[in-house]
């Protein structure tokens, strides 16, 4: 099983691209969702499931819903 620490931000960006089909540039990971026109809150359905499978840990869904960028979601899913 993958350990949480092994799941890097780069892995997360790959998950976003592969699972959601979002053409995310590396520098866009910290962009506010308002500056990410392709982003749709519905994407969280697949993203949460994919990240949980990758890390083996539950994602705090309530707090993720308040996140304003993908980086914030990563930080919540994979605490430092």
């Amino acid at each position, binding site marked *: 099983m993958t350990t949480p620490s092994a799941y890097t931000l780069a892995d997360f960006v790959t998950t976003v691209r592969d699972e959601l089909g979002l053409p995310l540039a590396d520098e866009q990971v910290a962009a506010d969702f308002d500056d990410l026109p392709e982003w749709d809150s*519905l994407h969280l359905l697949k993203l*949460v*499931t994919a990240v949980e499978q990758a890390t083996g840990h539950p*994602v705090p869904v309530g707090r993720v*819903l308040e996140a304003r960028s993908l980086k914030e979601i990563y930080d919540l899913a994979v605490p430092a």
Partner: protein
Amino acid sequence: MTDNPQVYLASVGTELPGEAVTNADLARALGANEEWIEVFIGTRTRHFARDLTTGEVRWSLADLCARAAAEAVRASELDLADIEFVVLGTATPDTLMPATVNHVADQLGLDQVPTFQLQSGCAGAVQALSLGRTLIASGEYRSGLVVGGDVCSKHLDLQRDLTKAAPSDLVNFVLFGDGAGAAVLTDEPSGAGVAVRHVLNRFTGLGREPGQVIEWFGLADRHDDRQALTEDYKAIEEQVPVMAVEILWELLGDLDWSADELDYLLPPQLSGRMTRKIAEQLDVPGATEISCVAETGNNGNALPFLQIERLLEKMTAGQKALAVAVESSKWIKAGFALERI
């Protein structure tokens, strides 16, 4: 505004198929996160006419509508022989022909009555109410049935591989449900004795992209790889609350009612979470919110009847209620006002 002659709602009946399906059930079936459904969608249970694990159709739309309609007639002070027309609003008819409303009439044991079916999304129940009210107000009919129902599970196929399904596809499984509702309308107060003070039904979609599309497939295109049910969730999230507020104030203006006079508010029923947000934005603190979607799922044209059923349990003489509905397919504003005599 006073609309004459007055039309009354005598009773309602509703039907939810089978047992409630929980988020845990759905999360297991979809491989999705249960908490996400709970928090993001805010809908706890729904009912399906189709057994999602076997695909078996347990009830047709006509079955559900006929049960709801029969219950509405029983709950009124009328006999079946008094029913002079049937109007059905639905987005998911059993067949394109015959229109499902005719099977409903048949199951009820009605014959020799005019029937109407309105092809419509979330505004269909209000459109049925609007047409039923107009028919009675014309003086040609004294009482009739208005019915709304949907079987959304027709588009929910758990047998196919959902691992590659788009989020907009997956969300349909957790948003929707099946059900039906009906009301008996009369030209004089009877039964519940609720006056239908006003009905709003207006297309506002000129030049606007649809927020929701349900495809239908025939022999020539049934193998197309099109998603049967698509929603522009982002557009719906942005526009429905704005439209709901506009509808509220338009209805109040038409009725010459103030917001303070409202005892109950029936907001649009999209999902538990979106309905909560919309109710906050409607901001009528003095009115009791009447919602059902968190327990019933979004079962389209059944929703207003399920709300009225809950309303009638509480509403006392002289109290006023306002319902707001938005059909995001091609952006229809809808709503109605009720007052208990």
